[in-house]
């Protein structure tokens, strides 16, 4: 935590001032001199610093390379592509008949998870029809670690499951529960966020947060001058996939002399607008970096409302951002945290019970959408709602496009 002690002093001083004026009768009380003298320094330091804790040079380098690596498999079906590496032998699981799958889901509380969840259910429909899966029982932990642990234990004890799919809510807290699932001897598939054990049959995820951070920060560095100001909008602290995005980006900004200030927004557009307007009233902002695209439109609107030039900006492949990006013509990039990964776990179940080997760590491709490709993605996702993700990878599934257009959340 590099946040200066002076800042804390300012808080205390301001609070004290407040308490004083609230009960004082003297209107001549002065503004806290602390706030004036320190602001110069304090404003120059980034408001937040947590990068060191989450930065991992080895993972950074590995993911940096993986961005340009060649993936095995059909590029038309990126959800089945993977990087060459250790494979899990699944011949022991090979068996006939439809299987029951139990899915412990962290939540569907953001548009990315909702889009994936819809895609997953359409994929399930296909596999049920093919007689691979009899049913999928899902429990939604609603972003709560304890609920998800209980969900997993329920599945182990009473679920009568043939295979477990787990999308962990958080890394450390879910590790023991995943280990208990592994001890049943049945296949365990973990996807999206990771856990601190490699007992799972396969761990499915796109390249990762560092790759996101590298793609986005390099784009901003390429399009900005040294000394330019970037506002980094972050959803919340403490989630590894998000922290890694910022850790990588922050390092690159520092190395290239970009002045970046980061804020936590909770994806609340009111907050985002407030932050940007305050920043714009302090000085010019040349770039906006986001660790997730939710709320990107509010950020762009804040520039419009203040009558300033559009920033160079990275959002996400969410339709609202792609549309606003096209409409405004700003210089932008849509990084992608491959939403099609929600199909992969069910297809992995199919492979596992067929006795086909699966990658121990199933790394899926993760390619940002540059401006040249934007029109294609807008066209192929026409009519989709704002919260839809362009790389959802479900065009060949039944129900396309109505199910996604109407956003029928199962």
């Amino acid at each position, binding site marked *: 935590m590099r946040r200066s002690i002076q800042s804390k002093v300012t808080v205390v001083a301001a609070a004290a001032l407040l308490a004083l004026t609230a009960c004082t009768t003297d209107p001549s009380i002065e503004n806290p001199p602390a706030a004036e003298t320190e602001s110069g320094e304090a404003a120059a330091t980034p408001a937040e610093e947590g990068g060191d804790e989450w930065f991992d040079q080895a993972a950074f380098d590995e993911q940096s390379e993986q961005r340009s690596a060649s993936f095995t498999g059909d590029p038309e079906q990126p959800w089945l592509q993977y990087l060459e590496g250790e494979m899990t032998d699944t011949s022991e699981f090979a068996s006939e008949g439809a299987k029951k799958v139990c899915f412990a889901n962290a939540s569907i509380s953001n548009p990315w998870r*909702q889009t994936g969840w819809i895609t997953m259910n359409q994929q399930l429909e296909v596999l049920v029809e093919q007689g691979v899966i009899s049913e999928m029982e899902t429990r939604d932990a609603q972003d709560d670690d304890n609920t998800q642990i209980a969900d997993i234990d329920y599945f182990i004890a009473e679920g009568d499951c043939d295979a477990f799919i787990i999308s962990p809510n958080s890394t450390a807290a879910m590790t023991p529960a995943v280990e208990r699932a592994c001890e049943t001897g049945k296949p365990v598939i973990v996807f999206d966020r990771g856990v601190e054990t490699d007992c799972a049959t396969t761990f499915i995820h796109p390249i990762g947060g560092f790759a996101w951070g590298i793609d986005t920060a390099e784009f901003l560095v390429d399009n900005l001058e040294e000394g330019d100001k970037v506002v980094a909008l972050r959803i919340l602290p403490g989630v590894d996939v998000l922290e890694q995005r910022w850790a990588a980006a922050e390092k690159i900004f520092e190395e290239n002399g970009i002045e970046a200030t980061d804020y936590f927004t909770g994806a609340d557009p009111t907050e985002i607008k407030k932050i940007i307007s305050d920043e714009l009233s302090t000085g010019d902002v040349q770039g906006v970096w986001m660790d997730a695209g*939710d709320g990107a439109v509010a950020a762009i609107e804040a520039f419009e409302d203040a009558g300033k030039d559009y920033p160079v900006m990275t959002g996400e492949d969410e339709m609202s951002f792609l549309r606003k990006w096209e409409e405004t013509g700003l210089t932008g990039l849509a990084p992608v945290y491959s939403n099609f990964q929600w199909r992969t776990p069910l297809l992995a179940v199919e492979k596992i019970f067929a006795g086909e080997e699966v990658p121990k760590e199933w790394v899926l491709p993760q390619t940002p959408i540059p401006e040249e490709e934007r029109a294609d993605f807008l066209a192929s996702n026409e009519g989709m709602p704002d919260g839809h993700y362009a790389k959802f990878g479900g065009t060949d599934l039944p129900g396309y496009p109505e199910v996604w257009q109407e956003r029928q959340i199962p």
Partner: protein
Amino acid sequence: MSTLAPDRKAELRRDRSPRKDRLLRGMRTPGGAVFLLLLALLAAVIVVNPSFGEPGSLIRFIGRTAPIAIAAIGQYFVIVSGEFDLSMGSVVTAQVIIAGNLIGQDDAKVLPVLLLMLVFGALIGLINGLVTTLLKIPSFIVTLGMMLALLGLVLYWTGGAATGNPADTFRQIGRGGIENIPVLEILPYPVLILLAIAGGAFWLMRRPYGRTLVAVGDNARAAALTGARVWWIRTRAFILSSLAATVAGIILVGYAGVHPSVGRGYEFTAITAVVLGGVVLGGGRGWVLSAAAGAFALEMLFALLNFAGVASTWRDTVQGIIIVAAVAAGARTWERRRRGASSATHDKQTPIAQPPAVGTNEGGK
């Protein structure tokens, strides 16, 4: 009696302290001090960030604080009558979601949905009020229940994620303004809405309803004995609060857009603002415009912290300290006033009327 009236008026005028004195005395109450606090904070912000003082940025700041000030005005009615409204934030969220889902891109639906939202808001307030007053359940519990019920409804409806923004014509209410105004550049609509609501609230508090509302908050039993229908007076306060939350929601849809996180924590921000405005929790003391000023002081303080480079993660802590400090300070000052200590030490005493001369019949007046 009527023949004496002009006489009494003149007497009152004579005995009343000069305007300057009354203003000064008002400034010494918590409800007045908040205006001084606001000015001090404004000065501090301008020192830290001079460009904030430009009329253009200042009016935008007022525009963006308008929904919070409107919510604070709504919360004031409930608090001054001796109750709480914790459901405010959820009402904002629910209204934002209603606007997003029902209007869509169809301009023709703007007016009907706007009406529906107002009716829905009034209905929530009516339920809060009736359950509190007729079933005698503490409003703290009733509105807490309403808050959770509405949040659940929103979660069920949206799954917790954003839906698309409604038509731009609807969003203009919160985003647009009258342009090409000299000096200010733009006069945002939220500022006009706030002015209208603040004016209306000020007027209402000087009407019999407002007087009775404060009396009910001070001593509900005494008010009931004078013939006031306490249950209906309080219920109307809840309706006003929910309607204020609805208006805040309408502005926020325009200002920010549709997202389930819009409105989160609004009830506490509004309560903090009201308390900071010197309104006594438990009712019976405080001015409505001070509550609005409290909202501006609070936001101004957050802006100051922000410009001073303090991370926004500190905000909740500051808000907590403010609630405790303001309640403590407010309670002490009002108490002193009640005991008469403050007027005895600070103010020149002017008798309300001449003491009756010996031998006259006092009751004859």
